[in-house]
């Protein structure tokens, strides 16, 4: 177990190193940060001075070595726009994104299990067909379109929910301010969470359904039926448990992917999280922030995958992490 974790830590460091290298290598192609820092009529001479001051004229190797040296001390550079250390900016935006992901996760877990199980045990009813049909729509419509549609229907049309932003927040600790403490906060987080969930929810319904259908065909379920066990106990205790293994694996990967989808959802809803911040940083050519974001997201991916592997070991005793680490 310990060996496994140590190995994972090394992997994480390697992943982040590679990401930083790639991020750094592409930053020259992102555009010229000076355009966003200076007004239109500023002379070329002044531009060159500032470029020199920012160290943008140095060679790639010198710039990267300088970056790496600072990164090892926990300094990922200073954002041009926010004028603060890039890591601080991201950590300030992180809670908003995590709450959004959490909200979406609640919706996904809450709906995918019952709907998935229902469509598996009653595959031919009209309701099942409607659910499966809608899930195709959910998967195929891009999330920004779903989001805009929701705003127009529920915010502009009916006026049930606010159209943008986070609303009233309650400070918890550090940089963390939560949406879940006030009614206003809840109403603000509902639509963005739903939009974010709209991509993943159909995927999970379909996954649970197909796994469940397979399990329902297995010998032990038939045996349980033959024994006369109450059907709901078979579905939710015996069958569902065995359905969840692949769901957890996919789920872990998808939570990481969801962080990526937050870029679109947050942009549409003007949600002040790190996905929105990233898109803005790309538009503004805020290169230190872009590189720092990539590194942080890489870190999140590695961490979630590690946790999934650990949970997998707990759910399925046949998986031996210690041996995997060897």
């Amino acid at each position, binding site marked *: 177990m310990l060996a496994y974790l140590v190995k994972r830590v090394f992997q994480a460091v390697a992943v982040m190193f590679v990401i930083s290298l790639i991020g750094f290598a592409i930053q020259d*192609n*992102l*555009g*010229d940060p000076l*355009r*966003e*820092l*200076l*007004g*239109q*009529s*500023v*002379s*070329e*001479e*002044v531009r060159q001075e*500032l470029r020199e001051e*920012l160290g943008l004229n140095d060679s790639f190797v010198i710039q990267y070595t300088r970056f790496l040296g600072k990164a090892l001390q926990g300094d990922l550079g*200073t954002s*041009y*726009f*926010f*004028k*603060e250390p890039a890591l601080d900016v991201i950590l300030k935006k992180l809670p908003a994104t995590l709450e959004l992901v959490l909200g979406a996760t609640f919706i996904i877990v809450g709906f995918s299990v019952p709907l998935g199980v229902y469509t598996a045990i009653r595959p031919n009813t009209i309701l099942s067909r409607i659910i499966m049909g809608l899930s195709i729509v959910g998967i195929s419509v891009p999330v920004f379109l779903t989001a*805009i549609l929701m*705003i*127009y229907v529920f*915010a*502009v049309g009916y*006026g049930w929910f*606010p*159209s*943008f*932003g986070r609303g*009233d927040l*309650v400070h918890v600790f550090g940089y963390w301010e939560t949406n879940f*403490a*006030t*009614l*206003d906060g809840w109403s603000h987080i509902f639509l963005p969470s739903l939009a974010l969930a709209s991509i993943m929810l159909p995927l999970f319904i379909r996954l649970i359904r197909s796994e469940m259908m397979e399990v329902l065909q297995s010998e032990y379920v038939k045996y349980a039926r033959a024994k006369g066990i109450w059907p709901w106990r078979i579905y939710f205790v015996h069958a569902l448990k065995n359905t969840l293994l692949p769901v957890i694996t996919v789920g872990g990967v998808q939570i990481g992917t969801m962080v990526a989808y937050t870029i679109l959802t947050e*942009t*549409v*809803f*003007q949600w*002040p999280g790190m996905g*929105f*911040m990233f898109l*803005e940083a*790309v*538009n*503004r*050519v805020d290169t230190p922030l872009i590189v720092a974001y990539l590194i942080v997201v890489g870190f999140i991916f590695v961490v979630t995958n590690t946790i999934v592997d650990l949970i997998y070991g707990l759910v399925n005793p046949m998986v031996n992490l210690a041996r995997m680490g060897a």
Partner: protein
Amino acid sequence: MKNIIRTVAICVMSLAFATAVQAQTTVNVAYDADPVSLDPHEQLSGGTLQLSHMVFDPLVRWTQDLEFEARIAESWEQIDATTTRFKLRDGVKFHSGNALTAADVKWTFDRLKESDDFKGIFSLFTAVNIIDDLTIDLVTSEPYPLVLHTATYIFPMDSKFYSGTTADGKDKAELVKHGDSFASRNVSGTGPYVVSEREQGVKVVFDRFADYWDTASEGNVDKIVLTPIKEDPTRVAALLAGDVDFIAPVPPTDLKRVEENAGTNLITMPGTRIITFQMNQDRVEAFKDARVRKAIDYAVNNAGIVDRIMRGFGTVGAQASPAGYLGYNAELTPRFDVEMAQSLMKEAGYEDGFSITMMAPNNRYVNDDKIAQAVASMLSKINIKVDLQTMPKAQYWPKFDERAADMMMIGWHADTEDSANFHQFLSACQDDATGNGQYNSGAYCNAEADALMNASNSETDMAKRGEMLQKLEGILYDEAAFIPLHWQNLAWGAREGIHAEKIVNALNFPYFGDLVVDK
């Protein structure tokens, strides 16, 4: 349990607070961007100037009809060819409580001369001399017609507030382009609003300044919450849903919706930003021939672009200066005649046409990529094959600096609100020493035009100056120095009861201090 009680208490308190706020007049404003810094001298951009007009006051400001209106300067007179004397208003207080004096204006002027972004505008200004506590002389190195134009950029800062050092030993007056400075986070001006809360990229909260000098202003808004909403559909939805009261800009696709929706009003105005294409004579031999350039101008249907692509949301242009500018030449009319274009091409010996490359941004101007596509297809009618590439502005500007394509799009708004500025940056002979022609990717160069521009810049007789600048526009038109397309219109959306039509202007910084709202 304790936590629950605390949470409930907070809920109740926030509800109570919310009702308390109701008593005040709050206006929620959504813009597509928020100011980069609280330092008014850090970056010359629309966002900074908008902030400056809320938190500071300029010596003079533009009215809706592009006239000058006295603000901090009560009156002014020219006392000799290079000196203008300004009388400052008495009893003006800064947010810190300090009284405004001539020393603050001088201090501000000296700081402007240090600013990378602003020193260009002030290059001909040598000094501010203090005559007495409320009188200053603004001195230029040569006779200069744009003294008042430039005075709109002097927003006196509180010199006492910005003097001294911070706790960590930094100079409070420090002007830093990137990184943390006292002035980028703290502000004290004379303006109608005090910045009471700011989270960059999320919101800025402004409260009415109790001791604001302009008691004659009818403005009755106690609090303004400025939220940047980048996405066009979201910004419009926020207005329609009633979550915000005032938005800018309104995208062309939603103009009708905002106008027809009950409860919201659309306010539009012709803008002053000209959208043009430049033809690079260094890269394409044929562009050296004025007949070819004219043929292109004749081939491009700019009225059609305004009508179809901009949905009428633009003013068709035939020159750089918009109506109202000194150099606006009413005789110049848009050219569109495909047959004429074809015969000009024939005359120049390019009947069979040629191939060129074209580049345009896709997120800088309204519908920029669609306009470029339209122009490219229009040029095919005169047998010019266009290889078009569009890209985000972040990648476009470095390409523009390299002059990477034969035809490139550029939009320009004159910082000085003056005609000569267009020529100086877009069509003057390129000269690194003076900075002329910095955005002239066409490499157009005409000594006569440059001489007219230079003469106009030291001509203080406005009638004569106007004549010169109009002649200059005429030359550029006759030679088809560039392809003028249109001036982008400006559009704001406001909730019913927000009388914003009186505070907007062609410069696109509404004077929120004078905003009147029905209670």
